[in-house]
């Protein structure tokens, strides 16, 4: 099978293809997300001065684009979601405004018993309004 990533211009690597900005995060959003995660830790569930968001809350940042211009938009539906790496920074608190910057971070190949696999890594860096790192999320897509 032809490499589905062969035509992707490697010059796209590292270039920002989307910047998304959230509305101010509310306590209700944070608590709803924590409840949906099955959390029982009061830090994430009880409204008040000590409330912080679940460490994975940055994944909730709404985005419009999933791949850069020049990459077929349906590509992510043709690959397998191979995994995610999340580096977690400062806590999200009510009132925070999150900014996410998306880049095509890496394209690499691995060869195993089943043949060649190609991986595409999309990176989302999320910061708060003070420029503090909230999360760096690498999503790995795998193509046979």
């Amino acid at each position, binding site marked *: 099978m032809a490499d589905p990533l062969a035509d992707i211009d490697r010059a796209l690597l590292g270039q920002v293809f989307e910047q998304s900005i959230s509305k101010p995060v509310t306590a209700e*959003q944070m608590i*709803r*997300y924590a*409840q*949906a*995660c*099955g*959390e*029982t*830790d009061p*830090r994430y569930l009880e409204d008040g001065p000590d409330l912080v968001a*679940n*460490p*994975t809350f940055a*994944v*909730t*940042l*709404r985005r419009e684009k999933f791949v850069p211009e020049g990459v077929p938009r349906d590509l992510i539906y043709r690959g*397998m*979601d*191979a*995994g*995610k*790496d*999340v*580096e*977690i920074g400062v806590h999200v608190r009510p009132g925070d405004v999150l900014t996410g910057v998306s880049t095509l971070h890496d394209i690499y190949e691995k060869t195993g018993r089943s043949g060649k696999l190609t991986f595409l890594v999309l990176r989302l860096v999320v910061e708060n309004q003070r420029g503090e790192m909230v999360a760096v999320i690498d999503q790995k897509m795998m193509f046979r």
Partner: protein
Amino acid sequence: MTSQRDEPASIADLDFGDDLRPLRLTLEPEQIAEYVHSANQVAPRFLSDEGGQQDGLPGQIAPGNLSLAIFSRLLEQAAPGAQVQKISATFRAFVRPAVAMIASGVVTDVEDRDGGKLFECDLMLETEIGDRLVTGTGTVFVAL
């Protein structure tokens, strides 16, 4: 989500090679749907069996981000009040509703850091009959 947690114990008592207390859980279809709404990740495959089947899947599946949240809960259960710093997950099979699962982990490294200890762990989410669904790693800082 129905889940059962053992009594929390301090991760500070754990050492290289020790097991984290397992987290037993079963995701209900409604809870997966609620998660994707709260995470701004709404897609038919996450909402119903019909939606999943339209995408060629066996039925409704849970998004990978929910597996990250489960790993986060597992680490926090072992280290109440600690700071989860990194989570990596490799998706090996679909996480589906109404399947009894066990999230487990083992401490693979312990380092002294300023003001505390940094624990690295191997993590796994599997069905009760031992089918591996998600494997990964986690890093958590415990202030001492």
